[in-house]
C-alpha cells in the first residue's frame, strides 16, 4: 500500500511541532557539526587557492653569455616565443638593465669590480604551470650563447609540499568532523525515536507496514537535516565573508588575501554541506528506527 503524501505531510508537521525540543536539539547538532565540516572544507579550498597564487609568480630566467652574438640571442627569443607552455611575452633585459639591478643586489665592493660589458643579457619568462619551469631549463641549458637557466625549483617544491600537507590536514579534519557529526546526528535522532517507541509499537499493532511507519520519520529527519545544514551553510558563508574581509587586496602577499574565494566557490561548499545534512538526516532516521520496527 503506498503511503499517502497527505498522511506523511500531516504526520511530519505534527511530530516536528510536538517534539519541538528534540527537533531543535537535532537541528542544532546538525548545524554545529556541519558548520565545522564546512569550515574545514572552505579552509582546504582556500589553501589550494593560495598555492595557485603563490606559484603564479614563479619565473624562469634564461641568462645569455655576455659575449653572445645577436643571432644567438634572437634564436633564443624566437624559440621562447614559440613555446606554448610559456606565458607571452617574455621580458628581455639588456646588459645595462642587469648592471643596474646588480647595483641593488651586490655590496659596493662586489659591484665596483663589475663592468657593463661583463653583464649578461637575459629573458624572464613565466611558465603556464610552475612545473613547466623544468621543461624550460632542460630546453635551453647548453644551447649556443646561453650561460645558464635558473628557476626557484627548491622553493616551488617546498611550497607544494607545505600546501599538500595543509590540504591533507584540512581534509582529515573535515572527514573526522563529518564522522563525528554523523554519529552525533544519528544519536540525537535515535533518542528522539526512542522516546516514541511506544507509538511505533501501536502502529505495528494495528497493521502498519514498516514503510508506513518509516516514511514520516525519514521525512522528519530530512527536514531536520535540511534546516540544520541550511544554518551550517550560512555559517560557512559567514566565515567566507570574514576571511575576505581580513584578506586585504592592497596587500597581495598576505595569506588571507591569497585565500580569498569567489562566491561560486563558497556556494559549491555550501551545496556539499546541505547535501550531506539532508543525507545524514534522512538515512540517520531510517537507521535509527530500524530496531524499533522489529516487533
Amino acid at each position, binding site marked *: 500500500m503506498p503511503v499517502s503524501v497527505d498522511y506523511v505531510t500531516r504526520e511530519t508537521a505534527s511530530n516536528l511541532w510536538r517534539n519541538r525540543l528534540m527537533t531543535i536539539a537535532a537541528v542544532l547538532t546538525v548545524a554545529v557539526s556541519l558548520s565545522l565540516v564546512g569550515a574545514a572544507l572552505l579552509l582546504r579550498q582556500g589553501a589550494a587557492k593560495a598555492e595557485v597564487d603563490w606559484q603564479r609568480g614563479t619565473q624562469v630566467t634564461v641568462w645569455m653569455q655576455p659575449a653572445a652574438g645577436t643571432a644567438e640571442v634572437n634564436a633564443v627569443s624566437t624559440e621562447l616565443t614559440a613555446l606554448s607552455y610559456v606565458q607571452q611575452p617574455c621580458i628581455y633585459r639588456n646588459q645595462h638593465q642587469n648592471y643596474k639591478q646588480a647595483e641593488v643586489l651586490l655590496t659596493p665592493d662586489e659591484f665596483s669590480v663589475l663592468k657593463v660589458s661583463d653583464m649578461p643579457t637575459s629573458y624572464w619568462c613565466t611558465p603556464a604551470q610552475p612545473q613547466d619551469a623544468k621543461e624550460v631549463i632542460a630546453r635551453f641549458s647548453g644551447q649556443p650563447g646561453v650561460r645558464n637557466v635558473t628557476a626557484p625549483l627548491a622553493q616551488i617544491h617546498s611550497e607544494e609540499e607545505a600546501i599538500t600537507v595543509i590540504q591533507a590536514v584540512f581534509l582529515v579534519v573535515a572527514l573526522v568532523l563529518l564522522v563525528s557529526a554523523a554519529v552525533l546526528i544519528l544519536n540525537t535522532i535515535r533518542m528522539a525515536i526512542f522516546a516514541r517507541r511506544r*507509538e511505533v509499537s*501501536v*502502529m*505495528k*499493532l*494495528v*497493521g502498519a507496514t*514498516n514503510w*508506513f511507519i518509516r516514511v514520516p520519520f525519514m521525512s522528519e529527519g530530512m527536514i531536520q537535516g535540511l534546516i540544520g545544514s541550511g544554518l551550517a551553510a550560512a555559517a560557512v558563508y559567514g566565515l567566507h565573508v570574514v576571511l575576505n574581509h581580513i584578506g586585504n587586496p592592497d596587500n597581495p602577499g598576505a595569506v588571507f588575501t591569497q585565500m580569498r574565494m569567489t562566491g561560486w566557490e563558497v556556494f559549491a561548499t555550501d551545496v556539499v554541506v546541505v547535501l550531506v545534512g539532508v543525507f545524514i538526516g534522512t538515512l540517520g532516521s531510517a537507521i535509527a528506527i530500524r530496531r524499533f520496527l522489529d516487533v
Partner: protein
Amino acid sequence: MIRFENVTKTYKGSTVALRDVTLDIDKGEFVFMVGASGSGKTTFIRLLLREELPDQGRILEAGRDIVHLPKWRVPYLRRNIGCVFQDFRLLPNKSVFENVAFALEVIGRPKHVVSTQVPQVLDLVGLSKKRDNLPGELSGGEQQRVAVARAFVNRPLILLADEPTGNLDPATSQGIMQLLDRINRTGTTVVVATHDEILVNWMRRRVVELDHGTVVRDQARGVYGIDAGPGAIEPEPPAQATG
C-alpha cells in the same frame, strides 16, 4: 478460525511458556483464557499476533499457517486481528477520533470510509461526545473503550484482549465485557486473557485454563475455578452470530 497444533514455546533460560498446546477456537466463539501469572496466557496472545514464533507446532488462523508467514505479510495478518491491552496503548497526542481513525488510515482506507465508520464505532462504545478529547482527558474505562473501538473499527475476524479489565474497577470492567460481548454477537471471534474471576463467572462462556503452559481445562460455559459441571473438557459449538 484459530487452531493450535502441538504448539510449544520456550523463552531464553528454558522457561516453557506453552507446552504442546492443541486447541481449536471456532468462528464467532467467545473464549476466556485463564490461569495464574506465568501460565502462558500472554504468550498465547503474542503467538496469535505473530509477535512471537513457536519452537514447535503449527498455528492456523482462518486456515492460514501464520508460523511460516513471510515477515512482510505480518502487518496484513494483524489487520484482521483487533487487540485490546491492559494499558490501552493509545496514541497520547491524537484525539479519540484520530486514534480510532488511525487503524483505518494504516490500511489505506479512503477518507469517506474513515469519516463514516469511526463515528459508528464511537457510537457503539458510547464515546461520540468525546471524539475530540485526548486520551489523557478520559477515565481508564473510557480509554479502554477507545482501545476497543480502535480494535473493532476495521471489523476484524478476531479480537484479542489481554487483561482488558486489569486496570479498571468492577463496574467499568463489566461495561467493557458487555461491549466485547456485543462485538462477539456481530460474529467476531473474541479471545480474552484474564485474571478477573468475577467477570468470567458472570459471563459463563467457554473457559480454557492454562497451568505452566499446559491446557488443564477446556470448559464450555465455564467458571474461573474448577467446575465439574456439564460441558467440561469438550467445548460446545459456538453461539450463532447475529450480524
